[in-house]
């Protein structure tokens, strides 16, 4: 009765089509029905329910994992229609992790052995979709049998499934590989060759080296086949093989060129072009021919072909830029093509053409173009300019002044969303290239001055960089008062707190700089007035200071200051400005802003009384001024200490002081921090700002008498950093910054901490060493010195971990290709070992199966002995070539051992003449 009213799939589809809005309600109703119906014992009802569910799964994406067991039931029905429904459901919904997947093993085996061709096909298709290790292992023998089937459709599907077997269960190679190779030679049936080549193409794309010995077979197909699909796949294989063996490349160049000029199929032609450009780029004449064909593609009407033509040019560009230059005009013109693919590809090519000599011109064109194009593409252009120019530490940039102003110009482009990248580059250049700092500051100032820019959230990052630069290199500013005004303008309230904090900090630096230069000019005028008889304390110290400053390369800066005097009026103006603009911020909710605002205000409070006295000539004036200048100098010293880039590995080179235990649980950290944190947060002092800016030296040198952090916490932090380096910000600024944090002394904790200052000093020394030699290297006029760190510019990438599966697969392939007689032993041993390890209960069964296979294989190899023999000869040579590679492997000694055994054995068998030619490509080819 149940099934009488069951809705069929067609009903569901019709129902779905009639639902306008309430589709999901309909679906859940149907699902309810399905859940009921699928429990039925009637095969028809069950399979119809399953079919409906599968449909909903693939069209409406409902979950069907709960029906896994019902799908398995369906494939066990004798009725073909029901079986088919079950198989479709399984291949659409099963994953390797589906718990009941192993239950289908027996049914699959049964169907693989079925006499009905379409049933075998269903089972093969299913295996190729969901086969996991266990299924592949269990069913390898059946697939092996089917690979020799007389029915072509079955045979080609069996071959197709081999790829899955090899991928999931590498030991299948030892069983099936020979038959797979033999299938290559079945030139009488093109579908088989096509299937085998497809399999080899996939295999070779993962590990081409293992398939080099098969080159002669592939070559034969390349020359003989007339099927474009097969030829494309063969070319794909040769693309992978040719770079490994130069003689092979020489051999295939000619047929490929011939194919390329003769074929009418564009797909094949394009594949030929790609093969030549990727793998045979050393063959000049072939590349010329290919370039000719590319030109044909470029002028084609079909945008697909034009796109692929440009794509091909992009492949050839790194090696033969002339091919691109020949088509320069076309490439530039394509930038305005309506097709986004073509636009992107031509942009890529334009960037390939960039060199030291034309970078200015090309960037000019591109920036102009970016301003005119739609936002998305505009940002792609800007992004590629940024990445090309910054490539390898600004390798192609000669004129940094130009580049910096270009960055400024780019930030002003309306759609620019590359704020983060521009920010990083501005700061990076500021730290690396000393000579460009005046220009950087000019560009930064221009950006800061423009109140309109503050409204664009994409620019905030850039403004943050500009503010930082202007604060850090404030000595290059022509008019610091003006800078202060723009840093404190009312519209800065539009900035996010993090950027605003940077603004405040920069304003602080600028203020200190202004006061410092004011006091300096004041004392020097005093000095002249008083005559040489009275060498004032302050002026002396200022001389000392300016001498020290000169070393930092600020000679140009001091001259600049002299040009614009800071008058008492402007100082008063500044102090008032600060009161007005920063005052309200001391109550800000953002801690960063609040802290910095209070720092500035605290400082102005301190300095105001002494300064205001000094502004009015009095007797006490001199004394006051000394006091003021002492304070200002202290801060000025803090800020003027230059930040240098620090190598990523600098931390690692700091020697661990004696008596430090680094391998302790981080739980201790909490205890340490618990005591130190409240103390440090209670202090409001200039040290806070110092902390932010990251100049390390002052506390170590000047305030050593002050407390030092417990060495424990520093070392723990250092250890943490070492271990979790990934999570620390990678830029040099932050490295130093972090150091500063480490060294930051919690105020009220009295402890003698010589180790820490040692640490920091060592670090500073190391950092200096790491970039000083390069900085000092001769000052080339043409290009300013760009500081590069010897090793630490990029995070060292941990050496890649070889994939175990691939390894075992290619090793298996290699073993089989060697074709040595020891195969049998190793196979049985391995199979036995495998089964012992993998499945406790199954070992007997497995070993038996494997032995059966062996019998099969032996009989096979008996009939076709010739190729096998030949292959073994070749492979012995290949092994010799491989020797080097194996030397590098670690942890594989067992396998190596086995190889070693083979090697010696074969060495005896073969005449030494063969051993000498250490190439895997057989003579047949050459």
């Amino acid at each position: 009765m149940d099934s009488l009213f069951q809705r069929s799939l067609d009903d569901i589809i019709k129902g779905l089509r009639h639902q306008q809005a309430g589709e999901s309600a309909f679906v859940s109703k149907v699902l309810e029905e399905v859940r009921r119906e699928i429990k039925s014992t009637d095969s028809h009802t069950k399979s119809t329910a399953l079919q409906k569910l599968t449909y909903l799964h693939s069209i409406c994406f409902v979950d069907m994992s709960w029906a896994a067991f019902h799908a398995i039931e369906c494939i066990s029905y004798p009725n073909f229609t029901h079986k088919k429904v079950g198989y479709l459901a399984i291949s659409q919904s099963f994953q390797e992790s589906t718990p009941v997947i192993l239950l289908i093993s027996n049914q699959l085996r049964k169907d693989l052995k079925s006499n009905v061709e379409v049933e075998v096909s269903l089972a093969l298709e299913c295996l190729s979709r969901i086969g996991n290790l266990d299924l592949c292992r269990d069913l390898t023998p059946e697939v092996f049998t089917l690979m020799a089937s007389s029915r072509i459709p079955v045979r080609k599907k069996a071959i197709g499934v081999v790829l899955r077997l090899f991928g999931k269960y590498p030991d299948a190679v030892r069983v099936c590989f020979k038959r797979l190779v033999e299938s290559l030679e079945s030139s009488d049936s093109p579908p088989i060759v096509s299937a085998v080549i497809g399999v080899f193409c996939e295999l070779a794309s993962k590990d081409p080296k293992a398939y080099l010995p098969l080159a002669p077979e592939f070559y034969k197909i390349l020359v003989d086949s007339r099927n474009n699909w097969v030829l494309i796949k063969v070319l794909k294989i040769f693309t992978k093989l040719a770079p490994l063996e130069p003689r092979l490349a020489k051999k295939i160049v000619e047929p490929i060129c011939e194919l390329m000029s003769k074929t009418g199929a564009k797909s094949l032609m394009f594949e030929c072009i790609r093969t030549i450009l990727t793998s045979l780029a050393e063959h000049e004449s072939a590349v010329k021919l290919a370039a000719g064909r590319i030109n044909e593609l470029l002028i084609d009407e079909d945008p697909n072909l034009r796109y692929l033509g440009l794509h091909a040019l992009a492949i050839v560009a790194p090696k033969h830029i002339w091919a691109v230059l020949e088509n320069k005009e076309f490439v530039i013109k394509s930038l305005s093509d309506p097709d986004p693919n073509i636009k992107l590809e031509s942009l890529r090519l334009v960037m390939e053409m960039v060199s030291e000599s034309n970078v200015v011109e090309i960037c000019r064109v591109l920036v102009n173009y970016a301003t005119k194009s739609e936002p998305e593409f505009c940002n792609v252009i800007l992004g590629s300019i940024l990445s090309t120019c910054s490539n390898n530490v600004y390798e192609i940039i000669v004129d940094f002044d130009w580049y910096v102003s270009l960055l400024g110009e780019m930030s002003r482009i309306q759609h620019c969303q590359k704020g983060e990248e521009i920010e990083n580059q501005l700061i990076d250049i500021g730290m690396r290239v000393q000579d460009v700092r005046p220009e950087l500051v000019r560009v930064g100032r221009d950006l800061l001055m423009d109140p309109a820019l503050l409204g664009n959230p994409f620019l905030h990052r850039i403004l943050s960089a500009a503010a930082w630069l202007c604060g850090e290199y404030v000595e290059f500013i022509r008019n610091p008062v003006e800078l202060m005004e723009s840093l404190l303008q009312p519209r800065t309230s539009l900035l996010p707190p993090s950027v605003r904090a940077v603004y405040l900090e920069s304003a602080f630096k600028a203020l200190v700089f202004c006061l410092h230069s004011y006091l300096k000019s004041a004392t020097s005028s005093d000095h002249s007035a008083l005559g040489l008889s009275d060498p004032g304390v302050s002026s002396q110290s200022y001389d000392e200071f300016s001498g020290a400053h000169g070393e930092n390369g600020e000679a140009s800066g001091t001259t600049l200051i002299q040009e614009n005097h800071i008058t008492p009026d402007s100082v008063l103006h500044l102090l008032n400005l600060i009161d007005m603009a920063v005052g309200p911020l001391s109550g800000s909710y953002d801690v960063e802003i609040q802290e910095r605002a209070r720092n500035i205000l605290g400082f102005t409070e301190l300095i105001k009384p002494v300064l205001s006295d000094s502004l009015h000539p009095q007797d006490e004036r001199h004394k006051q001024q000394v006091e003021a200048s002492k304070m200002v100098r202290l801060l000025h010293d803090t800020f003027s200490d230059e930040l240098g880039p620090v190598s990523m590995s600098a931390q690692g080179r700091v020697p661990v002081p004696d008596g430090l235990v680094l391998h302790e649980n981080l739980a201790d950290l909490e205890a340490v921090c618990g005591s130190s944190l409240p103390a440090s947060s209670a202090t409001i002092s200039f040290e806070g700002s110092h902390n932010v800016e990251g100049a390390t030296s002052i506390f170590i040198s000047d305030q050593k008498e002050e407390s030092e952090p417990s060495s424990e916490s520093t070392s723990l932090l250092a250890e943490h950093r070492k271990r979790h380096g990934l999570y620390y910000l990678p830029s040099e600024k932050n490295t130093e910054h972090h150091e500063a944090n480490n060294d930051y002394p919690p105020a009220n904790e009295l402890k003698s901490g010589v180790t820490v200052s040692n640490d920091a000093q060592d670090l500073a020394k190391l950092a200096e060493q790491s970039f000083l030699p390069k900085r000092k290297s001769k000052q080339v006029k043409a290009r300013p010195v760009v500081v590069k760190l010897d090793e630490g510019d990029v995070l060292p990438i941990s050496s890649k971990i070889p994939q175990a599966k691939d390894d075992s697969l290619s090793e298996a392939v290699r073993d089989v290709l060697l074709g040595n007689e020891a195969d049998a032993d190793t196979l049985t041993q391995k199979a036995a070992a495998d089964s012992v390890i993998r499945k406790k209960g199954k070992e007997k069964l497995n070993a038996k199966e494997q032995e059966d296979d062996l019998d099969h294989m032996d009989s096979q190899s008996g009939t076709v002995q010739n190729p096998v023999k030949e292959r073994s000869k070749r492979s012995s040579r290949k092994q010799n070539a491989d020797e080097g590679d194996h030397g590098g492997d670690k942890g594989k000694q067992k396998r190596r051992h086995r190889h070693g055994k083979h090697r010696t054995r074969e060495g005896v068998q073969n005449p030494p003449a063969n051993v000498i030619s250490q190439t895997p490509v057989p003579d047949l080819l050459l």
Partner: protein
Amino acid sequence: MIKAVMVMNTQGKPRLTKFYEFLVRKRQTQFSLFFFLPCLIRAENVSNFMEADSIFGPDSRLVYKHYATLYFVFVFDSSENELAMLDLIQVFVETLDKCFRNVCELDIVFNYSKLHTILDEIIFGGQVLETSSAEVMKVVEEISRQESASNSIGLVTKTVSGWRNR
């Protein structure tokens, strides 16, 4: 290797989905896939390829072809030739055309399992196994024969709708 085959109409309603690498697990990703693809697919007279790394993982390309109200979308990796994939879509559509005589969207909507049968003959586990539509037709007819044979052996069609349709 071919990673996925999708057929959808121009409104983004999926008509057929087949993923050869089981990669789209979350329903949400699937939804967004069909929501975004039609938006990404561009006007006429532009190239039919797309980089699809963001959706289908590294080394993924996508090619689509527009027939009447349907988009045919193939996702593949670098072991396939772009133009060959375009041809393969053509083969698939040709086969559908032969099978349904002037195929239209309705045929595709109502012949869900036949569509899978045809596709399985062309693409097997992500590899292209057959490129001749005549060969595909042969096998598909054989399968239909088997199906009808098995149905006639079984009991009379039992459902109301089946009965009504006769």
